[in-house]
């Protein structure tokens, strides 16, 4: 849906550009709002990249087993004083 919205806004903006400057501004405002949503998009991107990195490491068979991210994070929290995993 988000991608569709982005495409739609892009399409709209191209046409509006050809018309009036005022309309361009309006669309630009929408783009700015969309830009604000990009932070969320970024989180998804980073998560995707992280997963991709994990699978690359796996395929290379060069690093430790999977699930280590969770395990390590729990271990780090324990080292920081968390009393039990998941509750913290």
């Amino acid at each position, binding site marked *: 849906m988000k*991608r569709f919205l*982005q*495409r739609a*806004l*892009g*399409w709209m*903006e*191209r046409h509006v*550009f050809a018309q009036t400057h005022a309309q361009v501004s309006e669309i630009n405002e929408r*783009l700015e709002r969309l*830009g604000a949503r*990009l*932070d*969320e*998009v*970024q*989180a*998804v*991107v*980073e*998560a*995707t*990249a*992280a*997963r*991709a*990195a994990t699978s690359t*490491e796996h395929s*290379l068979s*060069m*690093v*430790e087993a999977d699930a*280590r*991210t*969770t395990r*390590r*994070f729990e*271990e*780090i*929290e324990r*080292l*920081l*004083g*968390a009393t039990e995993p*998941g*509750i*913290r």
Partner: protein
Amino acid sequence: MIPPVRLAVDLQVLQVEGFADRGIGRYVAGHTEALARAGRLAAALLAPELSPPSGLPAELATAGLVRWDSMGELRRLLADGGAIAHHVPAPFLHTGPTDPSVLVTVPHWADAGVARVVTLHDLIPLRDPDRYLPTPAHLDRYRARAAWVATADLVLTNSEYTRREAIELLECDPAQVVTVGTGVSPFFTPADGTDQELFDHWLPTLEGRPFVLTVGGSDARKGTERLVAAVGRVVNGGADVHLVVVGDLTADWRRRLTDAARKAGVEDRLVMTGPVGDDALRACYRRAAVTVTPSLAEGFGLPVLESAACGTPALASATTALVEVAATALATFDPTDTEAVAGAIADVLADDGRRGSILSAQRDLAARSTWDVVASRTADALDELGRSLPGAAWGPPSLRRRVALVGPLPPLGGGIGLYNRRVLEGAPSDVALDAVSALVAAPDLPEGVGHISAAAFGIDARPASYDAVVYTLGNSHGHLPTIELALRYPGWLWLHEVRLPAVAVTALSGSDDEDFARELAWLVERSYPGRAPTGAARRAGRSVLALIDAGVGFLPLVTERCRGLLVNSEVARRLVRLDLAPLAHHPPVHVLPPACPPVSPTARPRASPEGDAADDTVVAFGVVSMAKRPDLLVDAAALAGCRITFVGPCPPILVQVIGDRARARGITDRVTVTGTVDEDEWQEWMARATLAVQLRDAASGETSAAVLESLSAGVPVVTNLATAAEYGDGTVAHLPGVDAPAIAGRIRALLDHPAERHRLSAAGMAFARAHPFDRLAETLLSIVTAPEPPS
């Protein structure tokens, strides 16, 4: 003439639960105290990796003789002069297959070539491997340790029995093994009435009743079950006695002894006290009718002499070291024969003359068994060691500086991985370097650099054995192994970014929203206790940029236990100070110089001052992320009327975002995303680029490896990176903030003015030549290996 040899004694046995409060912990504490009194203690060393010590002798601590064992401490001790040997008084600690054996073997002392002294307490596991070494891995590990013990320059033993075992089982040279014996603490004295109240309160059911005492444990070797049966026979024979078992017993062993007592008809006469302190133990010795040690094997048998010192005769098995400790054959019995055990107890209870003879012999032996006598015998053995080893063995060793660099290495870790590798390549040869990474297979590293898998760091390699451990950190979940090690084994933190929320956000990407919010809230509260920006962090959710904007950097978590911080710019140093607890003490923060890859000797500055046709190949190098604002770069390219190419890995969703933006601006034919490229293609783009444009949205204090590489390649750089503003006037075209028209204006101006591009290119290359990686490596190593203050 060798000065009196003094010992640096490893006291870590007092840091291991289950050992500190047992015979071996008491032995080590008593012996070390006496060595100090005899002037033979250089230092008592604790392992920084383990728990705080339990039962640490106060006079050692207050005299300043207790130190944390480390390479720095070793250097200080050896620099003080004198002849020093390293003493491992509990050499069989950590012998499980996955235990950190390196804690015992201590590489920095081994590498220093210092003479090694060990104390051998027994080799019972080698005599009964089926019971004590359950798997081949256990057996291998124990045998390896035993072989290491056998190569010590001097082996001290607690008894003649243990000495014979060392010679027979370890094939030690008899001249190398010296019996120094065992001391009885002066705390154990005959009854003086002062502890009656304690005893009556603690064991009210035994008030005025005679009892047999044994110091037991959850081990069939101790023979406690047979003793229960023997006491049953004694009671059935008409004696009125109870049996008190002192010591820590597992639930299973409590059940086994209760069953044995029921079978013997003395269930109501068995008292199991659990673990006790010295006060209660002495009170028991003083009141017991007799103390019995029915063990099948002991390296010494301290309860026998402690009991005698308290005025109570002791009976013991006619085996192993117990024969020596029992002092007289009248006090021994065959521990495999219940009838014999019962007979010995009945005899001593009924025959005062026999009691007197046994007690007299044992008290004589106890009186001669003081820790000062043990220390005196140790001093004699050390003097002999001083004479037997060549003088060179006691001279100051020449130890190379040792440094571990922990962090990602290529092919992992992106820019930081590459940076780490280049630092290793640039390091001076007089420093011994090890790289520690999550890679299991050893990567291709410069000659002389060792590799240790992160999983083995602390197990097979000892962090304290380095002059410094440097942890390189960035802001992604790929740095979790480094963070875990840095918290476990504190060292120097090299922060390539000084805001780290992405570490948590990406590591928690698999959590649902509720778990994510809870875990992040915990981390935020833990980072900023009492002043946590909880609401702002909750609103930021999974957005890294919003978390940074909310003031969440998480630096307090990683910096609370480190030796110091290293950053790449003054900007980063300022940002570090803002994230740490205000008005509080912080670790030192050092700024490292930037480093550029080598500039090709044939490279010439781009563009001609006289002007050439303006090529408009503008490139953004490196991994594409929203933090680098690809959307604004597309806008700027549209306004400047140039091409823009993103060279580097780009997640599919950002390819989409860039494409949409280009369509919106009507410049799809001028925007290219290459995705991941190999080294040759990367260099090709470096050669083709007219300008490099590198943007950052948030201030994380990071240095851009792409900027530094562009400078080496002579590519003029337009950037808003605050750190790049420190490179000196004219090295980069610096723009504060992120504003598309301003960026576009600067790009256009540079494309239109080749002389300016030429000047930037030449300045960038000059900067790169002045900032090679060997200069960075030299600075880094001199900071982290500077002598540390005493522990």
